[in-house]
C-alpha cells in the first residue's frame, strides 16, 4: 500500500474506527513514515480541541425577536391561560352543576317541610302558586330557546372533532343536571332549591350554546381574533 493510500486512512485511525488488522498494518507504516506521523499528530490535536470547544451561548435578543415573531403568528383558539376554550369550559360546567347539586342537597338536608314555601311566600299563601306558574312559563321559554340554539349548534363542522366531543360532553353534564332537577320537581313541584338548580343549569346551557354558535360563526369566517374575544368573554 502506498503512502497516499495510508494517508486516506488517517481519519479512521484517529477516530479509532479501525479493526485490529488494519490498525496493525497502519501502525507498521507509521513507524517508517514521518509525514503520516505528523498528520496523525495534528489531526489528533484538532479533533481533541474541536471536541472541547467552548459552548456558544445564544444572545438574549434572539429570544426577544423570536417571542415577538411568535406573538405575531396566528394563535390557536385559546381560553383560560393557554387552555383551549372547550377544555376551559369543562370545569365551568362541572362547577355549575356541582354548586347547583350541592346547594340543592344542602337544602334537602337542612330544610324542614313548610320552610321552603315560607321563604318563597313571605306575603300571601296564594303567591307560591303564581311563582310556580312563572317558573314553569320561564322554563318553557328557556327550553324552547335551547331547542332553537341546539338546532343551530348541532352543525358544528367548523369545530374539530375533539372540540365537538368535549363540547358534547359538557352539554351532557348540563343535561344530566337539568334531568335531575326536573326529576326532583316531579316529586316536589314547589321545591325552590330544585327550581333554582334547574334554572341555573338551563341558563348555563343557553350561555354555552350561544357561545358555541358565536364561536362556530367566527371560525367559519376564519376570524381567530373574534373567536378569541368570545373566549375572553367566557373568562369574565
Amino acid at each position, binding site marked *: 500500500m502506498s503512502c497516499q493510500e495510508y494517508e486516506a486512512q*488517517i481519519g479512521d485511525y484517529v477516530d479509532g*474506527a479501525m479493526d485490529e488488522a488494519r490498525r496493525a498494518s497502519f501502525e507498521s507504516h507509521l513507524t517508517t513514515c514521518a509525514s503520516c506521523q505528523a498528520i496523525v499528530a495534528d489531526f489528533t490535536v484538532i479533533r481533541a*480541541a*474541536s471536541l*472541547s470547544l467552548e*459552548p456558544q451561548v*445564544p444572545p438574549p435578543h434572539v429570544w426577544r425577536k423570536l417571542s415577538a*415573531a411568535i406573538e405575531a*403568528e396566528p394563535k390557536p383558539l385559546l381560553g383560560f391561560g393557554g387552555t*383551549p376554550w372547550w377544555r376551559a369550559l369543562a370545569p365551568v360546567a362541572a362547577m355549575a352543576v356541582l354548586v347547583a347539586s350541592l346547594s340543592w342537597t344542602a337544602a334537602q338536608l337542612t330544610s324542614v317541610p313548610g320552610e321552603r314555601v315560607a321563604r318563597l311566600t313571605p306575603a300571601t299563601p296564594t303567591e307560591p302558586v303564581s311563582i310556580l306558574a312563572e317558573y314553569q312559563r320561564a322554563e318553557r321559554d328557556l327550553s324552547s330557546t335551547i331547542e332553537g340554539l341546539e338546532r343551530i349548534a348541532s352543525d358544528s363542522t367548523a369545530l374539530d372533532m375533539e372540540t365537538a366531543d368535549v363540547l358534547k360532553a359538557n352539554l351532557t353534564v348540563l343535561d344530566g343536571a337539568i334531568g335531575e332537577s326536573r326529576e326532583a320537581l316531579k316529586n316536589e313541584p314547589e321545591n325552590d332549591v330544585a327550581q333554582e338548580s334547574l334554572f341555573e343549569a338551563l341558563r348555563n346551557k343557553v350561555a354555552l350554546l350561544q357561545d358555541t354558535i358565536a364561536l362556530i360563526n367566527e371560525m367559519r369566517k376564519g376570524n381567530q381574533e373574534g373567536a378569541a374575544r368570545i373566549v375572553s368573554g367566557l373568562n369574565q
Partner: protein
Amino acid sequence: MVTPSAPRQPAATTGPSNPTGVRAVDLELAQRCRRGDAEAFEELYRAHAGRLYNLVFRMAGSADEADDLLQDVFLHAHRKLASFRGDSSLGTWLYRLAVNHCLDFLRGRQAKMTRVTDSLDEEGASEPAAASPSVPTAVSRIDLERAIARLPDGCRTAFVLHDVEGFEHNEVARLLGVSEGTSKSQVHKARMKLRAMLSGIA
C-alpha cells in the same frame, strides 16, 4: 506514536435512560406548545437553544447568521410542532430540523455566490499534504473557531457534525443525505485545511 482517541457518543443520538418517560414529557411539552402556551414554548427554547446555537453558529460560520438561523429554526419548529409525533425525542427532532435548515441556508448562500467553493456531495479532493506543518499542541480555541469559520461550507458542515458535535460518519451521512465515504472525505479535507491554517501555512 499518537494513540487515537476513542470515538465520542454523539449527544443528539444519546438515548435517554428511560426513553418512554422522556418522550411522554416531550409529548406533553409539545402539546402545551401547540395549544399556544407561551411559557411552554419558552421552556422548549431554554432547554434546546444552547445546543442548537452551537450547531448553527459553527455550520453558518458567523454569529449574525447564527442568530437569524436559530430564530428561524424555532419559528419553523413552532409552526411544525403539530407534526411532532414523539417518534424521536424532541431534542433529536429539533436537531434534525436545525440541520436541514442550515443546509437549506448554506445551499442558498452557495447559490448566491458566483464562486462555488465545493458541493456537499462532492468527493472533495484532499489538500495536498503540506511538507511538515505542525499544529500547536495547545491550539487556541479562538484560532480554531476562526479557522472552522473559514472552511468551505461543504467540508465545514461534515467536520462540525463529526468532530465538534461528535456524530459517527454513518450518522453524518444520514443527516446530510450523502454517502459515508463522502462524509469521511469531507472531514479529512476539513482537517487538512485546518491543519494548514493552524500551522500558519494558509
